[in-house]
């Protein structure tokens, strides 16, 4: 009889153990299937005079490393004469779900970017479109819920004769942000060139299905952009 009474009391005690033992492992199973991760692909222009701005790119990468959460993805790629290649990806990582491991990955990422900044050399041409296509492929592969391409460039595309980029590209559901779009000497002579260049890019990117197009020249506004 006493054993029975004890057995009868077990369900009450089982509430706690079941919650811990059964509910916790089940939680990820019944989780929200939509991805809440944020994937960022950063294109760093290394062509011509813009190569000297690479130091600023490192600041942005560091800022991104500090802002992104476990589970998010980050890739940094350079823009060269032809940028549609995995070889142009300097560093990429999908941060671990565990914060401690994610921090370790971020440290390694920072070291890789630092190494790139020290050893980077300028390129003859600037293939931004190729970089955008490569970035879109990378971002779509991550399956992240929020996808962003940061273009650290003056947005002056220069292609050699053999490179073909005059076709429609697909940037569906990707936010594209041009960062640190410095004015060229010719822009200073005729500012309409600068405005026209940005307008052309806006038309092209919005036409490619991008969810948003934005230009941020003051890096202090970058955090607000990432939060939104």
């Amino acid at each position, binding site marked *: 009889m006493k054993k029975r*009474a*004890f057995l009868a009391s077990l369900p009450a005690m089982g509430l*706690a153990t079941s919650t811990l033992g059964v509910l*916790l492992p089940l*939680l990820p199973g019944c*989780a929200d299937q939509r991805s809440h991760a944020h994937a960022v692909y950063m294109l760093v222009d290394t062509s011509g005079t813009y190569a000297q701005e690479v130091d600023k790119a490192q600041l942005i990468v560091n800022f991104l490393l500090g802002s992104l959460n476990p*589970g998010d993805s980050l890739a940094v790629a350079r823009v060269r004469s032809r940028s549609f290649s995995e070889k142009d990806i300097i560093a990429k990582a999908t941060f671990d*779900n565990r914060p401690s491991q994610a921090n370790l990955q971020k440290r390694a990422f920072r070291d890789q970017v630092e190494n790139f900044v020290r050893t980077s050399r300028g390129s003859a041409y600037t293939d931004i479109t190729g970089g955008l296509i490569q970035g879109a492929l990378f971002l779509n592969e991550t399956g992240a819920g929020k996808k962003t391409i940061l273009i650290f460039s003056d947005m002056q595309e220069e292609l050699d004769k053999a490179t073909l980029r005059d076709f429609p590209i697909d940037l569906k559901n990707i936010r594209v942000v041009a960062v640190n779009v410095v004015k060229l000497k010719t822009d200073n002579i005729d500012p309409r060139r600068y405005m026209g260049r940005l307008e052309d890019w806006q038309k092209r990117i919005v036409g490619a299905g991008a969810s948003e197009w934005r230009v941020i020249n003051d890096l202090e506004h970058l955090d607000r952009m990432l939060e939104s």
Partner: protein
Amino acid sequence: MADTSLWMIVPGNGALSALVLFVIAMPLLYAARGPVHGLVRAVGHLTGGPLKLVSRWLLAAARDMRERNRQVLLAHGREETGQHIAREFERVALLVRRDLEGYPALQRRLLDEITKVEEDYKKCGEVPPPPPEWVEAVEAIGRVKSGNELVQRVLDEINDSIKEIHAKTLADYRNAYEERHKILNGFMPFWRSLDKTLALATEKMTSLNDQAARIDAQIEKYEQIAKGTEKAEHALTVSQLTQFFTATLVLAIAAGGALVNFKLIALPMSEMVGAGDYLTASLRTSDVAALVIIFVEATMGLFLMETLRITHLFPRIRNLSDVMRRRMMWVAFVLLLTLAGIEAALALMRDMLIADKSALLQSLATVPQHQPAADPWLARIPTAGQMLLGFILPFALAFVAIPLESFIGSARTVGGAALVLLARGAAFVLRLAGNLVRNLAKVTITLYDIVIVLPLLIERMWKASSAGKASPAKKPEEEAPALPDKKLSARRGS
């Protein structure tokens, strides 16, 4: 834009047009008087009737609810007071067992001491010195005539003997007094002991008296509740309200504690279940896991309090045998202890994760930040504090069971009273709305009659003249056709 001047019979003169239209409409309105009155009255009743019905139903429901609340309140009060009385009796039994169990021994001790004192008192009684036997001889010799030498000598001898005997007797007498003083001096500890014993007995009796007075008060309260008097009901309601607000306040404080607890373990839980999994758009799995741990701790606390018989939320646990109950108590306590240990470890992990993140951010900063090296002991204080909090909070949360029980118990009364108030308020509003609608119908009918006052006057005059011709003695009520309508509506309205 529509032309609004179409209705104007006299173009450019709105007032005249309106007057003409009014004059044209008046006979029509007069002709439709009966049906319009009926329609307005019907609408009034159609709207007011259900409102009144619902109002009555609400009032009846409020009465029923109040009666049910009263029964529940009194039953609760009876149970609570019964428990209180039982507890008081337990206290009295304990008091009697503890204090008055030794009363026979105390009495025997008192009697022994009194007997001893009596014996000693008898011993110290003053013993008069025995009358010297030679007094009679001296008296006989004293009667002999003086001048006799023999007598003189005898008397001298006797004098010497008397002096000697007197000295001896005096010494004996003094010795005897000294002995008695010693005995009397020996009384003092007995008197003190007697006084102390009596004071102790008095104190115990007073304590018992106090307990008895408390029981009397509780019994009186119980009788009042059993009779279901207004006073008892009011007192119980006030007591329940006080309990409700106090329990709510304590629960709010406990919720604050739970929030701090949550903050302590939410971040390290992401290390265990991952930071990137979401249950909903904004609810992380790690946050839910932390919440589950806190709820499990609260549940364990609930079981612990239940098995300790501090709360009585689960009859199944209350009815368990003592052995089973004790086993269950230990199981709950061990689980709670384990969870507290886990929380302390998680708090430590949180501190380490924050430190790691801080170091990473510092290494990513543009300008290297050289912070002065803090005293290692000072740096350890927050860590130790977090661990201590992580360990203590689960036990503190365990005590939530007590206010929770009060809250659940009193919420029934408070909620019931609030429902009764709500039902009464709604009934009043509906009743008011029903009356307003019915009276509005009456006002509309009167206004309608005012609008067609001219045809009505003509009708009345015509009827009066025709009635005057037929029977001049007819009552004025029968003359006006509008009057029966008014009477009817007034009757229906009432």
